[in-house]
């Protein structure tokens, strides 16, 4: 970290835990939170007594179907009788959780933080898609009867037009990520598929087919973050948080160029500046860009400045982003392969960087030596960017 920001302490990730990601889990949301949180503590060799503060992340309350969802999850997340907050920026929440945990520690307020994210999408039935109906502007958008996939499709279509990308170029992301997920123990949608499989799957909103999208998932993920002193006591291989960034644009998503996520770039610039990174396309070794849809990974690779605008599809085809490529992206398998329990999926991406940077990712370990990684999430009405840079 560069001295362009004043912190009381450097902050490290020292533990991580996950549940299975699946549709229709038996466990309640708080039971899932407890499973992931206790695994994260155990992996750091800590107990709840060692934790000063708790940060909880979960996306719209309507998925779990419980208002006050942060409070509801607090006991399972280890949060009772200690400073506990819930943070929320829609799909961007997952990466926002470790960002919030970072400032709890960097400020000197807490020495250790348990950061827990949970989502159950399956209670909304017959399909959770209907729950998204309540995120739209009640006056200008709801009367049109929108579907969330519409806006992703609109953005994908714009990206295709602006960059001359074809559906088959974009489908390669789904092929790559679902194959990467074959080595992931939480994976829900790991598979060896082909571009043809994606193109032949059900067309939902052209240009989006079913296999362009991540599945409906339940699951939880957790991290333990600690101050420098604590981290060095806990482990010989802490993974440092070198930079964080987050920005929000307005909800008027139809008043901006949809071919490029400017707000993601702003968040990335903030994080890179803190980390002292000037040329991210060379200085980042491994990336976990947010991939709820396949085109989003390309969109975000460009927003994160890991490729020039419109260059990502070409680099993808050349194998640049493969696990054995120059800049592996979503080596975990991402949301497309591992699954998308919204907030938990972002934390899963940060956990993947943690394992990659400790060379503990087993079959998923990228081929090249790794020193620095970036994870990113995105959300709300195509307006939120959250970015974290980790280093070993």
């Amino acid at each position: 970290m560069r001295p362009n920001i004043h912190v009381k302490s450097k902050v490290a990730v020292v533990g991580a835990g996950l549940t299975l990601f699946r549709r229709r889990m038996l466990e309640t949301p708080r039971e899932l939170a407890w499973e992931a949180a206790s695994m994260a503590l155990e992996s750091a060799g800590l107990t709840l007594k060692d934790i000063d503060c708790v940060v909880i992340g979960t996306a719209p309350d309507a998925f779990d179907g419980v208002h006050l969802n942060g409070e509801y999850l607090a006991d399972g997340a280890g949060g009772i009788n200690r400073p506990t907050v819930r943070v929320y920026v829609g799909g961007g929440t997952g990466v926002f959780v470790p960002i919030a945990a970072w400032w709890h520690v960097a400020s000197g307020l807490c020495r250790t933080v348990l950061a827990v994210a949970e989502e159950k999408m399956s209670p909304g039935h017959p399909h959770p898609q209907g729950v998204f109906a309540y995120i739209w502007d009640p006056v200008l958008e709801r009367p049109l009867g929108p579907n969330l996939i519409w806006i992703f499709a609109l953005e994908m279509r714009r990206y295709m037009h602006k960059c001359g990308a074809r559906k088959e170029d974009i489908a390669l992301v789904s092929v790559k990520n679902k194959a990467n997920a074959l080595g992931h123990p939480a994976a829900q949608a790991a598979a060896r598929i082909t571009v043809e499989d994606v193109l032949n799957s059900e067309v939902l909103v052209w240009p989006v087919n079913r296999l362009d999208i991540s599945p409906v998932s339940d699951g939880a993920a957790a991290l333990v973050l600690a101050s420098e002193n604590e981290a060095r006591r806990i482990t010989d291989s802490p993974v440092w948080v070198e930079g964080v960034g987050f920005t929000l644009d307005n909800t008027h998503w139809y008043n901006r160029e949809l071919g490029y996520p400017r707000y993601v770039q702003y968040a990335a610039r903030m994080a890179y500046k803190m980390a002292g990174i000037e040329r991210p396309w060379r200085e980042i070794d491994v990336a976990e860009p947010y991939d709820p849809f396949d085109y989003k990974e390309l969109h975000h690779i460009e927003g994160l400045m890991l490729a020039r605008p419109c260059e990502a599809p070409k680099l993808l085809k050349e194998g640049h982003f493969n696990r054995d490529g120059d800049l592996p992206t979503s080596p975990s398998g991402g949301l497309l392969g591992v699954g998308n329990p919204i907030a938990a999926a972002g934390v899963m991406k940060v956990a993947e960087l943690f394992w990659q940077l400790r060379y503990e990712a087993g079959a998923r370990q990228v081929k090249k030596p790794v020193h620095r990684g970036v994870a990113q999430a995105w959300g709300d009405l195509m307006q939120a960017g959250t970015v974290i840079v980790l280093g070993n």
Partner: protein
Amino acid sequence: MSGGAERRLPGHYLKAREMYSLPGLVEYRPVARYLFSAGQAQSRFLDGLKEGRILGKRCPRCGRVYVPPRSYCEYCMAPTSDWVELPGTGEVHTAVVSYISTFRERMEKPEIVAVIKLDAPGYTEGGYEFAGLFHKLCNIEPEDVMSGRAIGMRVKPRWRPPEERKGDVNDIECFEPIES
């Protein structure tokens, strides 16, 4: 857990059939009814739609004309000032063909939905921000969307007959290509 690679992760998942026969399964349908006011700026905008006009509101500091209108400029934090009537014409920024409803039911006849970039003063050509609306397209075939012909196409609003207008976004039935 070395990379989460060896250990079996916690959690039990259910098939749809198993889920529906779970003991203690509770079905719940929230009942919540709302009356939303459209606010200062949008109420006037909706009145304009009733009259067959698309109105924007200008920021006196930066000159942006907001459609949909805001009472304040998001960038300057200044109150917006005068109302500007736009011609209503514009171009298709992006468009897609939807085969599913809000609740993901399959639709018999696909709908074409789009982002319309409206002709409005106060923005730089090719800039990141623009005045625009989210709406449906008609008189355009799905093939036009797929081939890309629809993108950048010049369009205008097709208004509902005055007696059918209610002061909401559906007073515009859709946007349709300008005959050339």
